[in-house]
């Protein structure tokens, strides 16, 4: 079977800095993959290149959504990439603070809706139905994630862990086949991390999703991942299952070799 995400020879150069250097990563359907590496290794740059925020200097990103044919993401804008079925969250919380929880999720449904300004102005029948469906779908997603009690709360008033989960809910609303999570457990307490762990596995098993996550919490990464990719200084230095990666000398060197860096 074709991998759902195939990144070949991805290179990203900022001025004189090679932030990514010939990175190759493939992700299979139904896989939970992790991208790890010391601070500044280029992990977030990798996400930005895939999702269309940066245009990679060279390299190919090909996706094969389940049941569909392969296509390249080259030159697509972020909103087009999202329409193809990739959704992501950020390291820092980027919710729409002044909107309610439901509205935040509904924005994610936006790209799956057709109505434009004219529908909005004249409030056509199709528009009404579509809007109703969006509310219904969004509420369903909130129920799945376990945020339904906050539905009309302002996003900024939610507890930290719930805000993090709302970001995932909002990403799910775009109907992705691959979810890219950038440090989903950052700042969470052990209890919240445990719940996140369960949520990610549940998403894979019940929503037919594949997940690629960047994470510094090694316990979470090791317990969760089917496959781990390690980058350092923009180069991919290892890949494999948690056991293989843990015992890989290159990885140990990257994490422990230089005392000034902390993992």
């Amino acid at each position, binding site marked *: 079977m074709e991998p759902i995400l195939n990144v070949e020879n991805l290179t990203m150069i900022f001025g004189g800095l090679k932030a990514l250097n010939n990175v190759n990563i493939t992700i299979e359907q139904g896989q939970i993959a992790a991208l790890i590496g010391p601070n500044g290794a280029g992990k977030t740059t990798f996400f930005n290149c895939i999702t269309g925020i940066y245009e990679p200097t060279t390299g190919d990103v090909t996706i094969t959504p389940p049941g569909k044919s392969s296509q390249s993401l080259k030159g697509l804008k972020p909103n087009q990439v*999202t329409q193809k079925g990739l959704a992501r969250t950020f390291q820092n919380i980027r919710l*729409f603070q002044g909107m309610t929880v439901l*509205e935040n999720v509904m*924005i994610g449904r936006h790209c799956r809706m057709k109505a434009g300004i004219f529908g909005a102005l004249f409030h056509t029948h199709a528009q009404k139905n579509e809007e109703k469906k969006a509310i219904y779908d969004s509420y369903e997603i909130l129920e799945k994630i376990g945020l339904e009690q906050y539905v009309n709360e302002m996003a900024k008033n939610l507890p930290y862990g719930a805000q993090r989960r709302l970001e995932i809910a909002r*990403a799910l609303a775009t109907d992705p086949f691959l979810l890219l999570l950038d440090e989903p457990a950052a700042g969470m307490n052990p209890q919240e991390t445990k719940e996140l762990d369960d949520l990610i596995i549940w998403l894979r098993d019940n929503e037919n999703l594949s997940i690629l996550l960047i994470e510094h919490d090694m316990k979470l990464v090791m317990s969760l991942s089917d496959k781990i990719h390690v980058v350092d200084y923009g180069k991919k230095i290892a890949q494999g299952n948690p056991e293989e990666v843990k015992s890989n000398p290159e990885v140990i060197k990257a994490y422990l070799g230089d005392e000034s860096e902390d993992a």
Partner: protein
Amino acid sequence: MRWINITLGLIFTGVLGFWGTREVISDPVYFLELLLGGITRGSIYALIALGYTMVYGIIQLINFAHGEIYMIGAMTALIVASVMGLWGWNSAVIAILAVVFAIVYSCAYGFTVEKIAYKPLRNAPRLSALISAIGMSLFLQNYVMLAQTPEFLPFKSLIPDFLFWEPYAHIITSVELSIIIVTIIVMILLGILIKFTTIGKAMRATAQDKVMAALLGINVNQVISTTFVVGSATAAIGGVLIACHVGQINFFIGFLAGLKAFIAAVLGGIGSVPGAVLGSLVLGISESFFTGYFWSEYEDVFAFSILVIILIFRPSGILGKHETQKV
């Protein structure tokens, strides 16, 4: 220092209040006239200020060409109404068609201005886009002057004098009444558009975080265009209404009206839609009182003094969020 400010403020308010109360008691009708005149003025400012504030909210650009969009709206209505008047059409049909044409034309101009003058500068420093906006403003003024005429043109009011309003017409005319009512309707519609519709949500999302909005599948360029189109439509409505009220227009009316609306938007807190409405009403009413009770020649001086005072004491405006931001 603080108590000196407070004391001075109290003395000032007290004197103004005392004097104001005496004036109101001595001639309540005049006071009412000025108040309603101020609300009318404020309504027009609000219709223009909305475009400023919405565009600023979404791309942090002061769209100085916005006043010209308003002028183009008034010009289009004049041309359409004159042509149809020659054909001898019914005046109600003329009024509606003139407004529709004005809106369509202004929207087309607003949309095009954004695509030509601002979109290529989306990632440039803000100053570049601002200069581009000023250039666009000058271009549109001169373009209309060359294509039409530099003279003042008489604008026959599209709004008839309502018979049932006759007894009150000495306080507030039918035209002024229509201006206030139309403005209220436009505000309500706009409120619904922003608060409840899909495109309104997309606009708010884009205003808060463009990158995140794009990653959630929102076509940011389309949302920005929509914002310009909506702002242009309200400005066109304002243009037609003020032309009916004043009775004459030329290519230059957009300049001062645009600046006044800009002051109103800053006064209310630029970027905030309710703020623009509030700021417009405050500016309109205080201008009306100033010209009515003091010197009518210094109307514009007064308005710009307000701008200076806000920028010194409350740069974020009445409803604006306090944020330390480098401009």
